[in-house]
């Protein structure tokens, strides 16, 4: 039995189709991240799971039970919001215990639950304060605490870290990961930050315009993006996409006289003469030093930016652009010709007409 099942959910606001048939099934303990750009319908889907919005069609099952028409409070879910959404004139203690208070849980039991959650989140000293006297990070811990005490079947997070500054966001991300590993609860987590998605998720659903573009583990999403959109969305800097044509078992890069051998896995996928898009992650590229390689990409260096851990190098191959993340001490300089290379299995091929990836025999 799935902890959470979303069956063919659609949602229209008037004539606008916000969600167009979403299907997801989650096992207990999974951490699903809904990843997508602004306006793709992530919050809408989350609100439908929570019962704060009604689907136009489709069904949500929580713990195997359809929750159609069930009030949010009876859905066995807890939710954490981007704005923290704490009750402004209640103390931290009462904020955390509010759900239990409303459910008439006895005071002693409630107090114990609140203190346990506060301990877990290291906010015990703050219990008597009001939200207005807390920092952003502390507020978010309180909001998480409020969800924790309820011990729900499913946790819903809507961009909980996006109001925090970069350093705090990193800290809270690790904290969330720790909590999830410890509590093994089912989580649906909305974000448009692909690093958050990669680090937290057991599975990622990349959404676009109300559809799920790809649903898979972070490794699958990163290494085997199913579409050009996913390839471009996940990873920073994003995946290089070179236009090319399949010619006699080789990939002729458009606008240059460079051609690469077509990896064996793609032999049957891309027919001769077909235009394709060659995808290579910047981190897969390295400098070809001296000796001849199987996949040489002769380029001319355009811009070199040192970010600290790596040297982000933008280069030109013919009239196309290519970004590479090189080690910080790589010997490259603007205007100089040199050559990149990569491993065969780092190469992805996409059909420019459909945007879909060509399957390899992996």
């Amino acid at each position, binding site marked *: 039995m799935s902890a959470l099942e979303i069956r063919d959910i659609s949602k229209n606001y008037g004539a606008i189709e916000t969600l167009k048939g979403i299907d997801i099934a989650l096992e207990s303990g999974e951490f699903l991240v809904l990843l997508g750009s602004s306006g793709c319908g992530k919050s809408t889907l989350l609100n439908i799971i929570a019962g704060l919005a009604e689907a136009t069609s489709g069904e949500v099952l929580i713990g195997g039970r359809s929750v159609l028409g069930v*009030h*949010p409070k009876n859905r066995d879910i807890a939710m954490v919001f981007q704005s923290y*959404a704490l009750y402004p004139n209640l103390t931290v203690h009462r904020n955390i215990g509010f*759900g239990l208070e409303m459910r008439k849980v006895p005071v002693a039991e409630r107090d114990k639950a609140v203190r346990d959650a506060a301990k877990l989140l290291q906010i015990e000293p703050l219990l008597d304060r009001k939200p207005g006297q807390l920092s952003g990070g502390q507020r978010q811990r309180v909001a998480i605490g409020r969800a924790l005490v309820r011990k729900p079947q499913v946790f819903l997070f809507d961009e909980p870290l996006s109001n925090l500054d970069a350093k705090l966001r990193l800290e809270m991300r690790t904290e969330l990961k720790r909590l999830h590993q410890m509590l093994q609860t089912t989580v649906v987590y909305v974000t448009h930050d692909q690093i958050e998605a990669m680090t937290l998720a057991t599975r990622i659903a990349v959404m676009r315009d109300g559809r799920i573009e790809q649903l898979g583990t972070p490794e699958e999403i990163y290494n085997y993006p199913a579409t050009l959109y996913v390839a471009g969305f996940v990873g920073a800097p994003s995946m290089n996409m070179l236009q090319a044509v399949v010619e006699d078992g080789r990939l002729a890069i458009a606008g240059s006289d460079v051609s690469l051998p077509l990896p064996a896995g793609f032999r049957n996928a891309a027919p001769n003469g077909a235009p394709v898009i060659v995808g290579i992650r910047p981190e897969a590229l390295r400098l070809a030093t001296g000796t001849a390689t199987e996949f040489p990409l002769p380029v001319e260096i355009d811009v070199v930016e040192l970010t600290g851990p790596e040297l982000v190098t933008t280069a030109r191959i013919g009239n196309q652009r290519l970004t590479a993340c090189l080690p910080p001490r790589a010997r490259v300089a603007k205007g100089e010709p040199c050559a990149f290379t990569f491993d065969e299995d780092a190469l992805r091929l996409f059909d420019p007409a459909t945007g879909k990836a060509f399957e390899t025999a992996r």
Partner: protein
Amino acid sequence: MSGTWMTTRAWLLMLPLLMVMVAVIGWPLVDTVGLSFTDAKLVGTAGNFVGIDNYTKMLSSSNFSRTLVTTTWFAVASVAIEMVIGVLAALLLNQEFRGRTFLRALMILPWALPTVVNATLWRLIYNPEYGALNGALTQLHLIDAYRSWLGEPGTALAALIIADCWKNFPLVALIALAALQAVPRDITAASLVDGAGPFARFRFVILPYLAGPLMVALVLRTIEAFKVFDIIWVMTRGGPANSTRTLSILVYQEAFSFQRAGSGASLALIVTLLVTVLALAYAALVKKTAGSAT
């Protein structure tokens, strides 16, 4: 250096306004204070200095205490009713339904009407011979015969309070509606997930955002209600049997009907003092309430 120049310039720029204020507020005020220590009549001689006689007489007169009670009663009742109806109206108009915008605009109408028009309108409604209220109540068999609502001491003040509420509740509703729209959607959603019912939601989610603005509305309305003159003057002139005479009406009668400028001035200053104390007390309260939701 530049600081003093800036200050000088600021004073220079404000000078014309200050002069006007001194002329239309400052001087009359000082003059009133001076007048209040004399037995001057409205017309004729300047009057003789009588010390604090006017004040002691006024404060010890039964007219004054009775009027103070009437005024307080009017202010407390009308403001309380306006607050309750205003908030309820705002809660209703904050719901999503068709025609909401139209209703919101419609609601402002009574408040937008000049008081004199409003007062005249209610006089027609209360008319003892052909008033709509009499008509409605007899047809509902709630009363047997037409009554003179404004002509009986027992009902006149209540009738006035209703008229005043009808005119002024939209202001409270408007302020409350604006405050309601500032309640974050997320907190409302969180309270739904947490299982808060309508009352808990009002208490813990809505009220924190409503309290500050409502306090301001309360201050504005109480002070205005305490100074009320026009609606009463048009509808009852303080009658019958002085049952609707408020402090402002008493000031008017003293100074203009009885032409006792000196004692009228002292009464006006007493009212001013009362309102100032009210305002200061409220200001302290507002300071405490404001920011309760931040």
